[in-house]
């Protein structure tokens, strides 16, 4: 007996089996995807290569930025600095502040902070017997400074400074200009704290090849102790350099410090101190975004083409489904899922393959050769192509493809909602 009408159950409640139906929609969508295997694979592959390429490019960019920030931070400013609040506007010896252990303790109380090193920076005229040149004078804590900038590694002659050393270390460029060598005497003339004149002779302990060409031509390092004495700035500092583990942690630490450290001090990040570096990175990033946008637009049209073709081929089948009682909304959701699956497969395959590749690349940066390498070295960059495996490299691709897919998925949804079953059946 096929239809014992009397004991054929009435409709069950709608909600009861909704889950099951969602499963059916997804199952159907999944199977539909593989009806035209080759086309689906080609479409997925186009997304795959797009994601791979984009991730590779982004990784390279972000890797180079990270390196750039690293250099800026390690060789110059540190991640953050505390100054007397007027110092950044007017870098005069008069805008220095008195060293207070309280302040250092307050900074170090933040668990994110690795260490704090003191500096006294000013300008002066550096002379040998017959030559004179403007110089940047860095009074440093030799041990602490070396911890951050590893300048002792850059010594090309002589020795590094001792704790209360009364000698100096010169940048190679400056030493060459003044025709001075280790054990020669350097004369510095400047103006000290509150206009007191400052002039002294310093034995040269060592010569370093500074990674920054600018600094290489002008830097003079001396011990903090000697520097304070020279400028008659007893116990005074121009900055406390604050170091943290990385740029991400800096953002958080900066927030905390800015809240904590107030008048008469101010806290600045390297980004505030060197906005030109930030600008350069942002500009480069924007260029990358345009390239990637073009790439993704091309891919988007590929996906759209596939979806349009699929819609055309299946018009009649859609007509049949609606004719026998499938609501258009439901059908639209199936095709929506199909489109989503294509995007998802592309993202997943792209990420699954690019992650290990980039992991490998970031562990083994590509060495550069030739002129480019030389130029980079001169500017204080290591001549390598660095790669980043930061979350953003992958997230960016995943978000881009998801957005593209979602936008494209609107097309089949709308065209199904508009289908006239009688016309579709004739297709």
């Amino acid at each position, binding site marked *: 007996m096929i239809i014992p009408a009397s004991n054929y159950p009435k409709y069950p409640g709608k909600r009861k089996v*909704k889950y099951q139906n969602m499963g059916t929609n997804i199952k159907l969508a999944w199977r539909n995807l593989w009806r035209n295997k080759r086309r689906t694979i080609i479409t997925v592959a186009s997304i795959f290569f797009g994601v791979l390429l984009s991730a590779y490019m982004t990784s390279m960019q972000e890797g180079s930025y990270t390196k750039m920030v690293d250099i800026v931070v390690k060789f110059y400013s540190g991640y953050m600095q505390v100054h007397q609040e007027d110092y950044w506007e007017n870098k005069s010896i008069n805008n220095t502040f008195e060293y207070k252990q309280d302040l250092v303790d307050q900074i170090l109380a933040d668990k994110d902070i690795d260490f704090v090193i003191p500096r006294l920076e000013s300008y002066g005229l550096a002379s040998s017997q017959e030559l004179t040149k403007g110089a940047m004078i860095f009074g440093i804590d030799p041990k602490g400074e070396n911890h951050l900038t590893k300048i002792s590694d850059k010594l090309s002659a002589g020795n590094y400074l001792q704790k209360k050393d009364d000698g100096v270390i010169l940048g190679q460029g400056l030493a060459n200009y003044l025709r001075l060598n280790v054990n020669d005497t350097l004369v510095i003339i400047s103006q000290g704290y509150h206009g007191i004149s400052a002039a002294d002779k310093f034995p040269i302990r060592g010569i370093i090849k500074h990674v920054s060409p600018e600094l290489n031509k002008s830097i003079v390092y001396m011990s903090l102790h000697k520097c304070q004495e020279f400028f008659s700035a007893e116990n005074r500092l121009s900055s406390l350099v604050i170091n943290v583990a990385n740029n991400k942690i800096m953002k958080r630490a900066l927030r905390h410090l800015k809240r904590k450290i107030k008048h008469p001090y101010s806290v600045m990040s390297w980004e505030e101190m060197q906005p030109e570096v930030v600008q350069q990175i942002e500009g480069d990033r924007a260029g990358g975004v345009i390239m990637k946008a073009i790439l993704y637009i091309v891919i988007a049209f590929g996906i759209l083409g596939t979806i349009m073709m699929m819609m055309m081929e299946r018009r009649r089948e859609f007509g049949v489904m609606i*004719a*026998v009682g499938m609501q258009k909304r439901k059908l639209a959701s199936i095709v929506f899922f199909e489109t989503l699956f294509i995007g998802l497969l592309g993202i997943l395959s792209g990420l699954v393959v690019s992650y290990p590749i980039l992991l490998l690349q970031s562990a083994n940066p590509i060495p550069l050769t030739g002129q480019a390498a030389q130029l980079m070295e001169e500017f204080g960059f290591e001549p390598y192509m660095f790669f980043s495996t930061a979350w953003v490299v992958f997230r960016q691709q995943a978000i881009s493809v998801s957005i593209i897919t979602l936008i494209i998925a609107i097309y089949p949804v709308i065209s199904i909602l508009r289908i006239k079953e009688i016309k579709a059946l004739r297709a």
Partner: protein
Amino acid sequence: MNIIEITHLHKTYNESEVKVHAVNGVNLNFEAGEFAAIVGPSGSGKTTLLNLLGGLDSPNDGKILIDKTDLSELKSSDLIKFRMKNIGFVFQSYNLIPVLTAQENVEFIMHLQNRSKQEREERSMELLRAVGLDGRENSRPNKLSGGQQQRVAVARALASKPKFVLADEPTANLDSKSTEQLLSIMEELNRKENITFIFSTHDQRVVNKARRVITLEDGKVISDERKR
């Protein structure tokens, strides 16, 4: 009791330059349990009439009542729901869903009706057995012959226990052996289960099996004969 009442039905097509009066003032009633053939030369309006009757197309004039429901008063989504509950369709070119197996095709409408898994499985197997396709339940349409596909389509049309089944030239693409097989299955379902079939055809052998023959010409009913 009439399950279908058609009064004064008109359908014209204006799409081309010449206006075509595809259905021209048709009045017809159908009772439960009928086995009716709509015949007539090509272009006489059979497909148009069946489409109107199935709520796939809307008339320019006239009325179709199915169990007291006026099709023209239903909005689009309700009409789809109405079809799902009340009307079974068999198409000339089978129109099975290619990614679904025979059994899943039969279950398709029951899915739409939110029937339980057990109910779906039992009923689809029962129907496949009735159309002589037990053992092929896991085959996809492209692994079945035309005749087999059309038998799956009949099983699909019956799955929701519709009030009647509409079949537009169901045998037009079938060889004579498959035609005979399909017809005898439909006949048996009609006789044993009292299922109402309304089908169009211009195959004389099919016409001979019908218990009622409605002849169309230029969109008009020119004869309506009941046998036995």
